[in-house]
């Protein structure tokens, strides 16, 4: 029964995005993916939410600049468990072409575990959707774990 419920629950992944200093290419594509009719993630149960406290799937873009780092980590910690992270674009993973900049803190993996990576500069919306679906798989397993461990 609980497993069934958690399966149902996993069909409502709410998305939150964090811009960790990206060139806004990935951000625009994330917004496009999340909000426009052509990709309509709402039919997959996704909802784009404004508050980190409502989120399940976190999309991170950008190479994590020094100045935004603590704020990103704080926001990340405000997201209730269970959650999954998706790195959109290559910047969070390796810094992309900003690696070696004096304010760039990539790789993000030092601070936040990355569950799914969607390479691209920026990845096309379909690729982001693919990443989100992959993330939902992982999230479902985590939900089951947490639901079953509670009882």
């Amino acid at each position, binding site marked *: 029964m609980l497993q069934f419920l958690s399966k149902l629950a996993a069909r409502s992944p709410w998305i939150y995005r964090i811009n960790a200093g990206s060139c806004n290419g990935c951000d625009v594509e994330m917004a496009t993916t999340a909000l426009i009719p052509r990709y309509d993630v709402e039919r997959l149960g996704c909802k784009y939410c404004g508050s980190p406290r409502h989120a399940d799937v976190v999309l991170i873009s950008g190479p994590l600049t*020094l100045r935004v780092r603590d704020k990103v980590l704080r926001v990340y910690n405000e997201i209730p468990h269970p959650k999954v992270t998706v790195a959109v674009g290559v910047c969070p993973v*390796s*810094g992309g072409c900003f*690696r*070696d*900049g*004096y304010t760039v803190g*990539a790789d993000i993996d030092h601070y936040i575990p990355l569950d799914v990576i969607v390479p691209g500069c920026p990845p096309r919306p379909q690729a982001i959707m693919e990443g989100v679906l992959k993330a939902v798989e992982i999230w479902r397993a985590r939900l089951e774990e947490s639901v079953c461990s509670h009882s």
Partner: protein
Amino acid sequence: MNATAKQSVETAVSRALGAVGLHWTADVNGNSFGWVKLCAPESLLSIAPALAQCGARLMTVTAYRNDKFGRMEMEGHEIAYHFDLEGLVVTVSVCLPDNPPRVPSITPWFKNADWNEREFAELYGIVLEDHPNPRRLFLDPSLDAAILDRLVPLSTMMNGASTTTLWEKVFAGKQLPEWAKGGNS
């Protein structure tokens, strides 16, 4: 093409500085670029109001080290002020004295010089005289001032380690996912 603008820049510059070398270049489209070289930062205080008066717009300010990490023989800093008058670009470069490099602020005449001046002040450690709002602009307080003024390559100073460690991990990663083997799927 913009002869009147050219004329008024020439008058403004010669009125402010007397006979100084203002020379013109042009690109393939016939746009003209004026170049002025100043040897003393104080001259800015006369050329800035003159240009402001003839209606020029400050586009941006570039500061640079003459030697770029010690590879060239010249020393010291220079600042290039780029102005626009009706499509004409006039670049006024100023040599700064060393220890410490200092320059007067032109914000009183060009409101938008504010950010530009704060930026080069924090990136190069140039001392600004009479700036109305001399705070840091972009740099995180945890970073040292004058970050672009270093003679050591920045990568080793800051994050060079990250590149090396990342690549070590890549070289160590042996299991290739299905689609990455041999490229196309």
